[in-house]
């Protein structure tokens, strides 16, 4: 499988990364080189093989449903580019 220019643009849009028209061709070349490289997986017979979900055999631990953390809103917003009254500030999203 290989990607065309439209697919490169669509991926950039899905990934929320702006790419300029003059960058598309080089991304397309690089992505196709990588996809060409991974293509060899097609020759592996995986019939009846379970996909790996955990590399070490383990069951997810559970804990009591208790509040164990919190109450430090000012710390959470301390690195925000823009904040007010412990809220993150963003451009308007609802008209």
């Amino acid at each position, binding site marked *: *499988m290989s990607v065309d220019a439209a697919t490169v643009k669509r991926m950039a849009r899905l990934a929320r990364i*702006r790419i300029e028209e003059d960058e598309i061709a080089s991304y397309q070349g690089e992505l196709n080189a*990588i996809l060409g*490289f991974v293509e060899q*997986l097609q020759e592996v017979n995986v019939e009846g093989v*379970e996909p790996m979900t955990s590399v070490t055999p383990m069951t997810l631990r559970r804990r009591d449903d208790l509040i164990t953390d919190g109450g430090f809103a000012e710390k959470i917003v301390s*690195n925000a*580019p823009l904040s007010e009254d412990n809220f*993150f500030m963003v*451009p308007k999203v609802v008209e």
Partner: protein
Amino acid sequence: MTDLTKLSLADARKGLVDKSFTSTELTSAYLGAIEAANPSLNAYVAVTADQAIEMAKASDGKLAKGQGGSLEGIPLGIKDLFATKGVHTQAASHILDGFKPEYESTVTSNLWRDGAVMLGKLNMDEFAMGSSSETSYYGPVVSPFRAEGSNANLVPGGSSGGSAAAVSAWLCAGATATDTGGSIRQPAAFTGTVGIKPTYGRCSRWGTVAFASSLDQAGPIARTVEDAALLMTSMSGFDPKDSTSVDMAVPDFAAAVERGVKGLTIGIPREYRMEGMPAEIETLWKQGLDWLVAEGATVKDISLPHTKYALPAYYIVAPAEASSNLARYDGVKYGLRVSGKDITDMYELTRAAGFGREVKRRIMIGTYVLSAGYFDAYYVKAQKVRTLIKKDFEDAFNAGVDAILTPATPSAAFGIGDEALAADPVAMYLNDIFTVTVNMAGLPGIAVPAGKDGQGLPLGLQLIGKPFDEETLFAAARVIERNADMDFSPKPWW
């Protein structure tokens, strides 16, 4: 007085306990070395001199009273991937500009609990994506090594290139690093240092900037096997804040270092004999095996048939997980923000400006392989191949193999700005061909310096162990280190 920076971590520890010198003296010596070398090597992206002296003084107080932890007063460098409270933590990326976490990673917390002193944050490939430490927003790390008769700058490997360069150039007594596909072992091999990636789950990932969560593991880079073992013991341990952290006692790894290899079975995987592999790598591999056999190990030829598929499967799994993990960098909560006409515009412009080319490329690949219609063909397929890769190793261990010996890298260090590698992303990825299988199977792997190439550059061997049997790796690596009996330190030019 001897140069305190040249001491091994173990000897520095002895000197501190014996009161031959203080942590303040040792720390000051390292800070002086960093000041002199960093303009040339670019190993540190932030030096925390005041904090280091403060921590050293606190350690001296404890040491004076005969108290203190296993690393009391030992100055360390910390990879920029670990969250350090109130200190530069940017994964060497522009998108995390100015980020100073309000919390401390579990791995560094463990080191400070045991008395270690932080010298600063170490340079790396951006978000740990790379094999040369050239993708950093802060510019490339320069290896302390140069080929004989040449003044061309070489890469220290990556992504933990700052860690490897700082350790080998005596800019810290040891360093933290992380390994997703070879990022501890490849730079260790390039710089004549020892690096171990422990079993997945041995070190907590909490507070470490995530790249590919099912592959990422922290580990140390150090100048000797014993030093690496001392650091590994402190860094490891169960952490309820990481759901994949394993609740298992941490052995005293240093106690295993001199255990020897008598009676062990060492596997030699035939698939690691790559076509076009330099003869000196082949010779080194044979030499390493001979040393182990001379000390009582037996050899077993083994097959790991899915080896060649590990790297392609990795380049599906790792970018997929990265595209998901890096979705959080959007200019809202921390770091860089580039304003736009609406919120989507802001996201797109922030991420375009904040991420470097290699990171963007991997996010795009990850987005593609996870997108509707391609998920089964790529991601699910890769995870099935991963099951087969792990089974290859299980079969070998079930057949009586205790550890597997392989080369660490397909070559010695290459030049900064290598044009052939820059033009072809896949050629750079091939650096991890011997190391990436270990991450895919979640196993421990250690790189130990074993020889030099024709230009005097260090070459390393890798030992791969059973899950949670890092002790055997330390013991076998020590046999190689002792038999190599070679000076793997760089000749200072900086």
